[in-house]
């Protein structure tokens, strides 16, 4: 019997990129500090040695410039992987990543696609303050033409990133600094994870909790806590936001009749509100209560530790929402 190998989230990301670069010369990595520095978060450690400076490319601090450059390259059929040190810094590249990449195929009437991956840390890293703690999912998922994936563990990080690199469309790949050192089982053998297939991480009958990325862990934590109180939760990890696997969510909510959405971005016009709207539309007659939502508070991200903790979604807030949606309080 072979013991399952365990690796870090960051190693899983690197394996995905390296394997794809080995199998396809069209794939290259570009970003700030990705080559000689080994990556600001060491995700690309060792890749420069293996692939050389033509394929692992350091850039100056010019997000708009290098994002646009890679989009131009992708128009010719190359498959760039663009690392943003943080998605917070992608805001200065909003025009190329939102106006060019996801619309090129449409605006050119099917002539030029844009097979590109933008990846980097999303969400609060820990006392980084408002400018550095962006959750871009709601902001960017609004745009048709792009796909968006948010892995929550090393297995998904690798499998989804490989799929992202092979996808013919622009993919926004949202990682979390807080997950980079988390370990998990990742098989040695090749695998990919299709987009648009949510994963039921915990089976349950009393309420469905839906989340993406890092907060999935808070949901599982909350589910354990609630189990002690006799509330049996189903936890769904959405994995990708575009395409959204609403069918898996709907199927679950029809069984549990209650739904809580946990979203690490702001509540207004968010992924949480989108899922709530779709669940209300599809499960109106099945619901025992309206969909409850757990978000970060509707304020800029604060610096002070106590304030930041109060602001972020956590297991306690999720427990409260589930108790409320199941009329247990």
């Amino acid at each position: 019997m072979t013991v399952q190998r365990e690796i870090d989230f960051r190693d899983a990301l690197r394996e995905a990129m390296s394997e794809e670069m080995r199998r396809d010369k069209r794939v290259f990595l570009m970003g700030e500090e990705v080559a000689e520095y080994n990556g600001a978060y060491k995700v690309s450690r060792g890749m420069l040695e293996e692939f050389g400076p033509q394929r692992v490319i350091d850039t100056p601090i010019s997000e708009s410039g290098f994002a646009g450059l890679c989009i131009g390259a992708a128009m010719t059929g190359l498959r760039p992987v663009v690392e943003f040190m943080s998605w917070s810094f992608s805001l200065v590249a909003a025009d190329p990543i939102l106006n060019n990449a996801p619309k090129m195929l449409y605006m050119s009437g099917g002539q030029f696609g844009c097979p590109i991956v933008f990846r980097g840390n999303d969400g609060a890293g820990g006392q980084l303050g408002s400018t550095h703690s962006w959750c871009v999912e709601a902001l960017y998922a609004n745009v048709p033409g792009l796909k968006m994936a948010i892995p929550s563990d090393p297995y998904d990080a690798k499998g989804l990133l490989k799929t992202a690199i092979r996808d013919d469309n622009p993919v926004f790949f949202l990682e979390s600094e807080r997950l980079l050192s988390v370990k998990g089982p990742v098989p040695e053998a090749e695998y990919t994870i299709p987009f648009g297939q949510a994963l039921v991480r915990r089976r349950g009958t009393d309420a469905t909790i839906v989340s993406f990325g890092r907060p999935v862990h808070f949901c599982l934590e909350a589910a354990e806590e609630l189990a002690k109180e006799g509330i049996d939760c189903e936890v769904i990890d959405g994995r990708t936001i575009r395409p959204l696997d609403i069918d898996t969510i709907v199927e679950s909510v029809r069984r549990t009749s209650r739904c809580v959405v946990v979203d690490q971005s702001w509540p207004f016009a968010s992924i949480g509100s989108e899922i709530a709207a779709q669940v209300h539309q599809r499960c109106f007659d099945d619901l025992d209560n309206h969909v409850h939502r757990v978000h970060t508070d509707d304020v800029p991200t604060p610096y002070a530790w106590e304030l930041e903790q109060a602001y972020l979604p956590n297991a306690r807030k999720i427990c409260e929402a589930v108790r409320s949606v199941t009329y247990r309080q």
Partner: protein
Amino acid sequence: MTRTLPVSDAGSTRPNAVPAKAGTSRRGLAEQLPAETLVGWLRDMMLIREFEVRTMQAYQDKKIGGFCHVYIGQEAVAVGCTAAAAPTDPMVTAYRDHGHALARGMDPRHCMAEMFGRIGGCAKGKGGSMHMFDKAHHLYGGHGIVGAQTPLGAGLAFATKYWDEVVNGGRSRSVTLCFLGDGALNQGAFHEAMNLAGLMNLPVIYVVENNGYSMGTAIGRGTTMAHDLSVKAAAYGIEAVVVDGMDVLAVYDGMKPLVDWCREECRPAFVDMRTYRYKGHSMSDPRKYRTRDEEERFESEDPIDRLVGHLERRKALDKESLAELNRDVKQQVRDSVKWAEASPPPPIEELFTDVYVDEWGPYRGTSLPEMLREDAGDAGSGKQ
């Protein structure tokens, strides 16, 4: 014959010297080409001029919607630059793009039909006047956001180099031409792109179609060092040249050695291409910000008239063949308008195609426009 370079009243008064290092302009290069080649350029310039005249009419007739910017006055730039580059060298430009599309070889039918919002358009009517794409002719758009095409141009140059060197294990062989207006000089994206091109040794030529104005803003009101734009390039270690964009022979003489140099050295370059747009910025511009006097001065140096004069002096063109060219071009443009009118609007299903390459949810995958389909021809959408 010496001639001072054209400048708008508000712009430069003294063109900077052409640096000797990067493919120095070679006077007389174009004159040595066979007369048929130059007559071909003349035809292209006349075609663009006539096409734009009909574009303005169609816009007045409300057959074209949205924003529409015509290229009249600047024809020598697109035609001369296209001639200096190889047909496979990528080109990318801004929204004043009809001239580049036609110079590159797009059938005017598809260009007109695109503006008419018809399925026969180069982008099936999904892009419009500002977004002309032609994969077969290596035209990577038509981009509506001022300056947005400049990082894309760096990326196209990066890509040709990467394909040649990394994927195919050879030597970089292409040069990308990235056109921009003088207004784009003030966009951050342009400066990031120039820095990246300089750092990464990208074979891209930034051709600034310096027509002296961005909408109503004279270059000197919006751009520092407007009298010597080469300093912008110097800041990024990029060679710069100044070219008379009102004379197609001068455009070729300036661009051909530069294109050759960029290809050979795998280095970027920058061109201050002095030109002038005769018409307003877009279709709704009364041109209050400049004098009629200035306009007449440029119109008196019209690039089409000048090439005609040159060919007549060489006895390569007589009145009759010029008249024939004229008739021919008019006929072709009339035909493109008819063809565009006959092409149906895109079927409603097109709303959901070309969003993603693959099919999922409401999305219906992608398909090429008629222009690129092998079976495309007169039997296509635009029946006459």
